[in-house]
């Protein structure tokens, strides 16, 4: 007898169900891609404790991604599994925002990417917890405490690097300049997200953006860093228009399943 995952399906029209599938897949891809990026640090971290921290955060995100993929597979109801969704889709079918697929760069790049994502992730999960979709609420309830540890960690590092040495400050400012343009996509709704916001399944992003702004302002002030203003928001990932980086990432991530279809550990 198989172990089962208790999944609560919402009673919605087929149209909303399709939109929810797309949205849950977007959440899943986002967690998976960032988890993979962090896993690339494993064994290469600047010091052992931070190597462990990135591996731990990667694992949390991977677990969260699995919960979303399992739910998405159930919503779709076509017999695809979480592994089919994670391993057998092409880059243009991925729905993660551009931010999370950006390369690790130096440690400062990884930290800035992580902090911008963590601030969004945490405040999104707080909202999803009380949303009408009970399965998303359950996943969010599970993940929000993990996300709180993540954002505390990345915020501490932004402060340490910004208010650290001339070199650490130079590097974190370079990273902020390179990555800030990808922050806006996180809270810019796609047509799918807009449709789900209209029926209450996706929280309003204006309130979340305000919380992110306050969070970032507080951390940057302590880090003695300036918050960039008026930066153009580069979008595309959530609608499948990705940077070149994603293809290389997926080549590695999907290699085993592509080379040996159906392979299991």
């Amino acid at each position, binding site marked *: *007898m198989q*172990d*089962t*995952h*208790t999944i609560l399906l919402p009673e919605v029209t087929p149209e909303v169900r399709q939109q929810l599938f797309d949205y849950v897949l977007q959440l899943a891809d986002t967690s998976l891609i960032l988890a993979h990026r962090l896993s690339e640090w494993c064994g290469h971290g600047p010091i052992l*404790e*931070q190597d*462990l*921290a990135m*591996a*731990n*955060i990667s*694992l*949390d*995100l*991977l*677990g*969260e991604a*699995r*919960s979303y993929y399992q739910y998405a597979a159930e919503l779709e109801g076509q017999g695809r599994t979480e592994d089919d969704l994670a391993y057998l889709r092409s880059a243009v079918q991925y729905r993660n925002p551009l931010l999370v697929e950006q390369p690790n760069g130096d440690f400062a790049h990884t930290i800035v990417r992580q902090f911008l994502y963590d601030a969004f992730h*945490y405040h999104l999960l707080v909202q999803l917890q009380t949303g009408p979709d*009970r399965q998303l*609420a*359950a*996943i969010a*309830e*599970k*993940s*929000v*405490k*993990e996300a*709180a*540890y993540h*954002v*505390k*960690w990345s*915020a501490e590092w932004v402060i340490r690097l910004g208010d650290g040495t001339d070199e650490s400050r130079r590097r974190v400012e370079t990273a902020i300049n390179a990555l800030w343009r990808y922050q806006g996509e996180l809270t810019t709704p796609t047509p799918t997200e807009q449709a789900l916001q209209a029926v209450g399944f996706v929280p309003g992003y204006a309130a979340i953006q305000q919380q992110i702004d306050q*969070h970032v302002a*507080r951390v940057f002030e302590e880090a003695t860093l300036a918050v960039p203003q008026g930066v153009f928001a580069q979008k595309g990932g959530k609608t499948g228009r990705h940077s070149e980086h994603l293809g290389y990432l997926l080549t590695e991530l999907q290699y085993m399943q592509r080379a040996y279809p159906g392979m299991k550990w």
Partner: protein
Amino acid sequence: MTPTPPPTIPTEDRIWQLLEEVADPEVPVLSILDLGIVRGVRVADGEVHVTITPTYSGCPAMGVIATEIRLRLLAEGITRLHIHNQLSPAWTTAWMTAAGKQKLEAYGIAPPKDVTGHVLNLFGQDEAIRCPHCQSANTRLVSQFGSTACKALYQCDDCLEPFDYFKCH
């Protein structure tokens, strides 16, 4: 030929007793009941249902825990078993038993403090944790992330030993 005896239909109390003997694979000094992972046991129509919940989303031990539950119950002749993974309500260290906390400390891992809710306090101070080796409170956080998802790394500034803290969740 003697007919095969009908499969045993154990009581729920008996199942709980058996589950007490299943150890957590990452912290083997704790049973899965000490950890609060088992959320329910039900026997209905001759089938056993055990509901478990993960400590962390990515906890790699969940598969092993499900297998160990299956093996322990199988040894008692219980074959008709369903294991359900449930996410909500989300696991919290508040579900860890008092006995479990004592076993942790004796094992050299500082047990989680009783406070709940502060995990979501994003700008709070680090927790003051007692060293499980020398009981000193003069300790400091080295990293919120340790050897497994559920532990943080601390160091004692009196006995100088590093130690794991089973962090609040």
